[in-house]
């Protein structure tokens, strides 16, 4: 039955799987960001006046992240916009944070309960769409 999960070898290597490049090559094989994880909906902002120093070896992807984060942008938007996997973006964000080039804001509502006023605002906003 086609609706069932395909068992063919490497069926995840389709167009949806993106470019066939080992994603962690650009992180020199590092899979965990420095200084802890980043929530998918944490926001990233480039540090004002933060310019990569000569002594900070940065890759094009690092620069792309800094460029995309002049306005607050969520981690998930960064990953999708730059077409990088979320794990790779996290490692690169860890580098940038260590270098003082970005600030990171974890979602304040990461723990329940959620603010009922916020929930009302969401409902009203959805109704108004």
């Amino acid at each position, binding site marked *: 039955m086609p609706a069932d999960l395909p068992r063919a070898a490497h069926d995840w290597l389709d167009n949806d799987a993106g470019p066939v490049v080992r994603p962690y090559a650009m992180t020199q094989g590092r899979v965990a960001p420095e200084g802890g994880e980043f929530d998918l909906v944490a926001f990233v902002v480039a540090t004002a006046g933060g310019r990569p120093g000569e002594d900070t070896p940065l890759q094009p992807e690092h620069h792309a992240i800094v460029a995309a984060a002049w306005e607050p942008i969520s981690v998930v938007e960064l990953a*999708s916009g730059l077409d990088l996997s979320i*794990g790779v973006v996290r490692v690169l964000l860890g580098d940038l944070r260590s270098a003082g080039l970005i600030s990171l804001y974890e979602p304040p509502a990461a723990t329940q309960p959620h603010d009922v006023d916020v929930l009302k605002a969401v409902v009203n906003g959805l109704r108004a769409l």
Partner: protein
Amino acid sequence: MDSVRSDHNGASSRIPVALKILIAGGFGAGKTTMVGSVSEIRPLQTEEILTGVEGADSVDGVEGKTTTTVTMDFGRITITDDLQLYLFGTPGQDRFWFLWDELSEGALGAVVLADTRRLADCFPSIDYFEQRGTPFVVAVNCFESEQRFAPEAVGRALDLDEGVPVVLFDAREPQAARNVLIELVEYVARRQLASASR
């Protein structure tokens, strides 16, 4: 080190509040359709580390392979400049449960899509959210020319806890999909008020 400016409150005028909603359900139940009908949908690459998760691919003979690629759908609804809703279509395959844990961390709630022709497909999602205590609504995606069931009948068939909303909708209709989200958020608010008054 000033890189960790953790004064959330001081920065809240600039940093939006982002809420996560998960869209779950069996293969082909309409997750991608729903995310696409209410928001601008985009693919998200996740490259996950295989850590001997039960059900993960056997790595016998390919011990060098320690990651696997999962593509998820996500979409954003901008309520106001300061308030954004993120929808995540959860990966359908069982072996990606470990991704769900992260997705559901801090999530506002979940929509479990049900297809009445294959109702059992959504059991794992329901079990998962019940176990984690994540509030969810069940949305029955009504495909054309299909026998319709009363929401109560679906709720009984799924053995849902009392109060869990069941709605019938068409995932392709933006307004209908939005109403499902409204139903979920209102349900979360009701639960919250109820637990606060207890």
